[in-house]
């Protein structure tokens, strides 16, 4: 069960810098640890995050085994026009999650 959340304003002035935060519940298992019986625990991480604004990519990030569990990503974008922002996470073992949020630009 993938769980992700996004936090951003629902309204902004044209040209304003909008602060966006996105977080995913994920253990980010590095692949470098062993279990109690000494067997290695396979890697299971989120590898990519992407944000599109009315279909245009405005932010992307690659994630690696050193990223902490439950990664939180904070970034900004310019409010250009009203519409929808889409947030996509993808990773090992077919992990995939998406949220969207709309913004009214006045």
């Amino acid at each position: 069960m993938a769980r992700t959340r996004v936090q951003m304003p629902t309204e902004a002035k044209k040209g304003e810098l909008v602060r966006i935060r996105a977080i995913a519940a994920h253990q980010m298992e590095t692949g470098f640890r062993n279990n109690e019986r000494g067997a290695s625990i396979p890697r299971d991480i989120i590898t990519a995050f992407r944000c599109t604004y009315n279909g245009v990519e405005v932010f992307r990030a690659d994630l690696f085994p050193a990223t902490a569990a439950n990664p939180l990503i904070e970034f900004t974008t310019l409010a250009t026009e009203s519409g929808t922002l889409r947030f996509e996470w993808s990773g090992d073992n077919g992990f995939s999650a998406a949220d969207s949020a709309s913004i009214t630009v006045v």
Partner: protein
Amino acid sequence: MRVLLLVLLGCLAADGAAQERKSGYEFMTPPLRAMQDDDFANPGMFAVQDGEALWKSEGCGACHAAATMKGVAARYPAVKDGRLLNLEQRINACRKAGPWPYESKELLAMTAFIANESRGMPITVSRDAKWLEEGKKLYSRREGQINLSCAQCHDERAGQKLGGSVIPQAHPTGYPIYRLEWQGMGSLQRRLRNCMSGLRAEPYAYGSEELVALEYYLMSRASGMKLETPAVRP
């Protein structure tokens, strides 16, 4: 008069030795406090939400509304028929399908959900002399190859450092917690077992009378302090 004065001075000295009580929160860096205070950034909130979903899917609401759980975590462990039960054991006693194992995702989530219902409420455990005595005894007894008692660190050296970590006063105000070192949630018993293995003592088993008595003593020692679940700790 002189006797009274001496008695008074004695009381002052005893009080002066004990530091002002502070939650582990107050020993943390500002960024970590901010992480705990912000429900969006606090990863423990995922566990609280999982617990809420479990409350529904397990049918817990059939017998008591979730709202009746307000204040419950603040008075556990509790004594029932002479036996001491912590919150995890109380939850498991209600579960028809059998107990969830200690530190399972489910038990941590349900405990976090119920304890979060009491966030901001003062700790009000009972004062059962027998179990408090037992807990205090364990807290004051030297353990392990390192041969230290809990009190030697958490009463006598609180605020000082052990390696890179500040030694807190061991108030169990935020359990289950999201601990960065664990990269996940853990119960108070996990925390206590961690301190014991740090002493190179054999940790008491999960759910053992000893650990629950320690929990009870620690909660009683923190009476009146506010619950913070889900706390973040380094």
